[in-house]
């Protein structure tokens, strides 16, 4: 089986894309923490359910950003292939 340099770069790009998605761990923890706190808040004050939910979703959407950086890098590695230029 002949492996050219191009194949090797493609394979390593795929591995790198997989590694880049480890960035998803952080937002996962953060969003889970936000959801847990929101659940506790609704438990203490069920009347404020609507605004608590809105605030939680907003905070989670902002916390997601760092994970999306990893996703963007993975997309670039696999589809744009900057290392082959």
């Amino acid at each position, binding site marked *: 089986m002949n492996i050219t340099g191009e194949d090797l770069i*493609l394979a390593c790009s795929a591995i790198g894309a997989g590694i880049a998605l480890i960035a998803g761990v952080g937002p996962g923890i953060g969003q889970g923490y936000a959801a847990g706190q929101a659940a506790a808040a609704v438990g203490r004050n069920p009347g404020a359910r609507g605004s608590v939910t809105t605030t939680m979703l907003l905070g989670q*959407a*902002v916390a*997601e950003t760092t994970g999306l*950086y990893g996703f*963007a890098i993975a997309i670039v590695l696999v589809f*744009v292939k900057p290392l082959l230029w």
Partner: protein
Amino acid sequence: MNPAAVILAESGGSGMSFMIRHLVDFELFGQKLSITTTHIAIVIVDLILILFAIAVKVKFSHPDNVPGTFQSAVEFLVEFVGNFVSDNMGPKNGKRFLNYTGSIFLFILLSNISGLLGLRPPTADYGVTLPLGLLTCFLIHFNGMRSKKFGYVKAYFEPIPLFLPMNLISEISTPISLSLRLFGNVMSGTVMMGLWYSLMPVFARLGVPSFLHIYFDLFSGAIQTYVFCMLTTIFIQDKMGDPE
């Protein structure tokens, strides 16, 4: 080559259905340009928005005393965006920025949910979200300079002059993080839908994707629209000083 390598090698072009596709290639001043799926989708989204605007104009030239379905829906929309802007910016600034925020709200919302129409969402192209972020960035600094004058420059040297590089970096990263957040969310939804449609057996492609569409297109798209508009208003207000 084995199948995985073929998918990897071809996916930049036409192999997978979720990447940007070049429909018409042409050359202009020595540059190779092309009309892509993004352009088509933007034109369709804009046409829908223009038709909507004409319909609203026709309806509200002779408004009914007892609002019908369409009139109530439009009134609700305007009230929602208006409340949301003036909650974040105060009543006076809220009126000034209602136009801008309402426009990008409608455009981003319709772009994000255009996956339901079978289009590739225009916001899944970084060339669309970066200009949106830059527009907001321009508004932030223009209004900051106009309302704070010298205080705008002074804010870069606070709390101590040593913080200048960090303040500059945080200013530069604002449009990038705004645009990447929107792009990443819509793009991840598009990739998931594309993978589902291209890899699943045919019986899983009927019916089941509707739930995925509800999550990735409607829910995620609406939340990201809300977040983008909210951050836009908050950043502009933050640079302009306290709401009066």
